[in-house]
């Protein structure tokens, strides 16, 4: 790890002042479960590290008129322990529980989970965010069992956040603070595809901080997350699906279906969403929705199985949601 300057500001404003407008100069430190690993591998070599855990306004979970407000430095453990999250947002609860080690849930934060960098082994091995050598993505002819089945332009890594699909399905917004004030975007819009091998996969500027997430009320919205995971302990899901369904009587009024770990950004399965409208949530309908969700998938040599996993994840998430009250 390269030597760095360390700061622990107590306000968002102060923290923003310490950031740089250039990526690579300074890094925000929340729980550190991802950042420290990146620094040890010299993937990140910040000159300055800014701890935001001392900033009170970034913590806490509270019910507001706009919905549930979750501070960026709320830990995954706090999130899973929260009563409102457990009862009203089972999909979010399930997604957070899927970060499958108590140690990581104790340290890792909601902001950090959304802003964590991809786990692609070519990126982590020092080949850049697009995992390229001589302008070519190594995943294409290489080992791509965990890579994208919905690649975008030259990006074959998968977005690693388990919370993102659930938050997107629930229609959550992200609040962002920067030198020119605050802005708010749908969580979906946090994620972009970098145009080059040293680019970034978040729409945040280098001197912006994700301050909070607001999840609109999910009363009456059936929601669930289904993860396909190879093992229970300390592992990433292979594919996840988060769904949020508004019902009208016994049929679907509108549906949100979002896939995780299948593309460089969470993938909104629009076709499945449209297909579900007006249907009741039967086994057959859920199976159909699973199939629609993977239309257009472009698997590579070693990850075609993820297409099947995505189908099943959507089906099972829908059937799980159908069981829920609301």
């Amino acid at each position, binding site marked *: *790890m*390269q*030597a760095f300057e360390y700061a622990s500001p107590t306000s968002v404003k102060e923290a923003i002042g310490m950031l740089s407008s250039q990526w690579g100069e300074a890094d925000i430190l929340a729980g550190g479960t991802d950042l420290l690993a990146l620094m040890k591998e*010299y993937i990140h070599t910040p000159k300055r590290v800014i701890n935001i855990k001392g900033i009170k306004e970034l913590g806490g979970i509270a019910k507001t008129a706009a919905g549930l407000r979750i501070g960026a430095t709320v830990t995954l453990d706090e999130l899973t322990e929260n009563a409102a999250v457990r009862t009203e947002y089972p999909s979010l609860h399930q997604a957070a529980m899927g970060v499958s080690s108590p140690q990581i849930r104790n340290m890792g934060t909601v902001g950090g989970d959304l802003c964590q960098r991809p*786990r692609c*082994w*070519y990126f982590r*091995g020092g*080949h850049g965010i697009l995992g390229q*050598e001589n302008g070519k993505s*190594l995943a294409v*002819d*290489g*080992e791509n*069992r*965990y890579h994208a089945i919905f690649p975008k332009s030259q990006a074959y890594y998968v977005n690693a956040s388990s919370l993102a699909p659930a938050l997107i399905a629930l229609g959550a917004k992200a609040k962002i603070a920067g030198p020119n004030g605050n802005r708010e975007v749908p969580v979906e819009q946090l994620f972009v595809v970098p145009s080059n091998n040293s680019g970034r996969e978040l729409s945040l500027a280098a001197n912006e901080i994700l301050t909070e997430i607001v999840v609109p009320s999910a009363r009456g919205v059936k929601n669930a997350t289904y993860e*396909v*995971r*190879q*093992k*229970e*302990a*300390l*592992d*990433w899901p*292979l594919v996840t699906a988060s769904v949020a369904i508004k019902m009208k009587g016994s049929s679907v009024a509108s549906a949100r279906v979002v896939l995780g770990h299948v593309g460089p950004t969470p993938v909104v399965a629009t076709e499945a969403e449209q297909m579900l409208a007006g249907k009741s949530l039967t086994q057959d309908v859920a199976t159909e929705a699973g199939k629609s969700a993977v239309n257009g998938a472009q698997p590579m040599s*070693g*990850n075609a*199985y993820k297409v*099947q*996993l995505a189908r*099943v994840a959507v089906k099972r998430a829908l059937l799980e949601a159908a069981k829920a009250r609301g």
Partner: protein
Amino acid sequence: MPNYSWPPMSTRKAIGQRLSRHDGIEKSTGRAKYNSDLNKPGMLQSALLTSPYAHARVRSIDVSAAEKAPGVTAVRVIAPAGTELQWQSQEIAVVAAATEPQARDAVRLIKIDYEVLPHVVREEDISKVGNRAKPAGEQLTGDPDKAFKEADVVNEGHYGIPVLTHCCLESHGQVVQWNGDQVNYWPSTQNVSGIGGDLAKNIELPATAIKVHQDHIGGGFGSKFGSDRWGVEGAKLSKASGGRPVKTFLDRATELNIAGNRPSAYAKIKMGAKKDGTIIAWESTSWATGGMGGGAMPPIPYVITNIPNRRLNHSAVATNGGPLRAWRAPNHPQASFLTCAAVEDLAAKLGMDPIEVFVKNIEYAPEPRRESYIYQFKKAAELSEWSKRWHRRGDSGSGPVKRGLGVGICSWGGAGHASTCNAKINPDGSVDIELGSQDLGTGTRTIIAQVAAETLGLPVNAVKVKLGDNALPPSNGSGGSTTVGGVSSSTRIATVNALDKLFEKVAPSLNTTADKLEAVGGKIQVKGDPAKSLTWAAACRKLGTQSISEQGQNNPRNPLGLNTQGVAGVQIADVSVDVETGVVKMNRMVAVQDCGLVVNPKLAESQVAGACIMSICGALMEERVMDQQTGRVLNPDMEFYKLAGAADIGEIIVHMDLREELDKRGVIGLGEPPTVGGVAAIANAVANAIGVRVPIIPLTPDRVLRALEERRSA
């Protein structure tokens, strides 16, 4: 010669007790200090520069900037200009500095120019390895061509098991201090008595100049016997830094890349049998790698070795990966998987129960263990509810989750190694047992105390065991499951010798002769006459100021019936497979194992349970993933080099075969055999559940789904 033989099973007091290991509390509370925890005054840290390429030549290397970097005390070049590097992470240079960050920063200042050379890092498809495959020559027995023609059923299959790494939680390394003509050496080793000599050879000092100490080791599994490049260089860095201690422990990636691996094994296997299940022919073409030396042929056909007609071809494939090291039962898990999978496939084709097929062919196994296998199959079947749960291939139940059972077998030697023990009986009644051996976490300290207590008629906690220092009487390294036989025998002999001396001392005061005395229940008494006795303490007081100090040796060529070799074991796995996702879950693992006289059944059971967990990891998760484009290992970490956690293991049922006729054979090693059959059992259980063979291990969702898909499209 005194009578050293083990007391009969029925009269034993300390041996056979289900005691918890002596260092359990110390370890689970973190009080136990491993050598990687050491922090000596003035200690320097070191960091290695290793090859980023799988194959390259060092054109030039310039360490001048590193030498001038802050905190640096010494830099050594391991691979000078001209050196051909044959695998990623091969050592190139090493730096000692006041702190670890300083050492790492300095390493990054070393300028090196590589000529990158072509590499081969993958071997599962042998048609793609070119001239890297070296055929070993055909082994022919009987007339396989004729036998295949006579067979009623012939089955052909291909199977593979990849390279694994040892993944020791305490990585390889040491603290070492070379001061004047003495070296203090604190390695992480399976070889306390021998490793000093190995280091001495490499730094041209007499072996007696090296003082080795280690209380605990965080895993070795066969990979920690030598002083290694980093040990030798550590010593030289210490000398070059004015004799300050230098610490080197490999980081995780280097540990997984170069500190040893278990070679792969791939094979195409054809078997022929008669309708009644009698196997008459075997043909295999196999290949394996464990680095540039390739990989040897696993001992196939495993256990049922003497199939009358066999043709075996094997190629060792040289790949640019870190070199292999012994891994808990070298080549046996591979052999067991290849053989048991092929037998299971054959049984499915015959429409027979695979256990029936094994039993039918058991005369192909070495004579002395046949009966054990038959007994163990029965016992394991009973514990796994085989007759109720086993079914023909393919769980016909509805729903996506299919359940299946599968069986695997093991064999091993496990004779005791050369070991010397010193037993001291002190005037204050205390007892010290000293051996230059090591406790790998297997409970060696505890079983030594039990053996000594048994001989001396004392409670186990009255015995103090000292291990882990090469100043103590030498024992061999702990490999090949040889430790328990070696140290229990040497301890038995030493304590019998010491007790005889004590008998001589106290006989006059009991008006008798030494040969009439016995030690039982904390007393020395006239045999069968408790009225004529002295308490242990009173007896020891008769020693005056002189302790008794007696040695005992296990001589592997003549172990006096105290230890022997040759064990059998059977494992049955019970799994559930989700055929929509390919995810395999363990329900249960049953292991039935013999190992002769069992000194401590609880510790034996936990050895076996640990071995089952290793098998579950190996069957379902572990795999070193190589990238042919970059030549690199893609998962040298604990994230994508996957290991099981508690929730992934399911229930483990261990049954130690403690029957008296086995007990009479003496002590036999246990570390390795139970790691052998598990992968085979799990792979067969998956085939039984889903109705199709998943040929390549580990049984990950992608492979399970692919096998199902291929069957669908067939």
